[in-house]
């Protein structure tokens, strides 16, 4: 495990489900983790945009719809091992159940922050892995494709 990954574990950003995903990656599916994570980013950004626009409603806020989006975000976040994002979703959901508008705003801010942090760190992680793969290729250039 490299230092960044280890750091992310210690910070609670990622949990063992992320390791589970790495175990599913092999020669038959060499980019599995980044594929799933990219789908996750794509889905999550849509959900986050939905949540923000739902919260921007001047009058009646649709807490129920927010709850539905949150469930989806929570589910996929936990499926990739994004622990902190998942936890913020849980807190956010509580705020929607209480019809707590201010609480929802705070939770969304925190959610967007955690998500951005996660995305940056995962990009960094994938870059490190790519560089390693390249370096290995340079060191052992004898392979004939």
């Amino acid at each position, binding site marked *: 495990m490299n230092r960044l990954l280890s750091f992310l574990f210690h910070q609670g950003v990622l949990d063992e*489900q992320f390791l*589970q*995903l790495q*175990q*599913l990656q*092999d020669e038959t*599916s060499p980019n*599995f983790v980044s*594929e*799933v994570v990219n*789908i*996750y980013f794509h*889905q999550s950004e849509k959900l986050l945009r939905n949540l923000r626009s739902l919260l921007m409603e001047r009058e009646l806020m649709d807490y129920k719809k927010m709850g*539905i989006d949150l*469930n*989806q975000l*929570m*589910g*996929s976040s*936990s*499926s*990739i*091992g994004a622990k902190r994002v998942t936890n913020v979703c849980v807190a956010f959901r509580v705020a929607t159940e209480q019809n707590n508008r201010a609480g929802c705003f705070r939770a969304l801010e925190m959610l967007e922050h955690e998500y951005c942090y996660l995305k940056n760190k995962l990009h960094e992680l994938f870059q490190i892995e790519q560089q390693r793969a390249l370096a290995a290729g340079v060191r052992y250039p004898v392979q004939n494709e």
Partner: protein
Amino acid sequence: METNGVVSIDVDAEEVHVLAVDDSLVDRKVIERLLKISACKVTAVDSGIRALQFLGLDESDGFVPGLKVDLVITDYCMPGMTGYELLKKIKQESSSFREIPVVIMSSENILPRIDRCLEEGAEDFIVKPVKLSDVKRLKGYMTTRDVRGETENREINVNFNGNVEGNNGVGINNKRKLEEASDEFSSEPSISSSPSVSLSSSPMSSSPDVLDSPIRRLKMADTE
């Protein structure tokens, strides 16, 4: 390695075919990979309606399935038809479709929900996120069906002392398995005749122990 060796009788090398149902693309990708890496054929669909269509149980009679399905694994919370409703539809069938084991997945650890699903005939209830150990347990349910005497036989694991167990050590179907086992191997001398669920005495290297089954974990912790 355990002292009791395990002999795998590969009666038919055919892979099991799992129908996975989940509205989340991320989860579909993960469950698909978990199943493929566990040597299962997978069909992943995004809704209960599509699942019924694939099984050929949809009223509109549109699609006739090409492959037999050995297990359905479905998310509970889905828009339109929930996993629970899908479970009911399958179990209400008068044909052999009713026999297909159905496993429910949910990110929520809600006991009444779990009970309701089990009462309706779900084989198991997995709390998400789904892991490799959960999928390994699932393969045991597909073995169970065969021990019940289906025409297609698959892998049956036989311990040296004559006990028959599926790929998992324990699970909620152990009682049934033990009963079938004594029928299948009545000529074997030493079958542990204890009717209680104690197959964990000789766990296989790949099988999770008792506490790994969320059903057991939840039932033990139902004060939470």
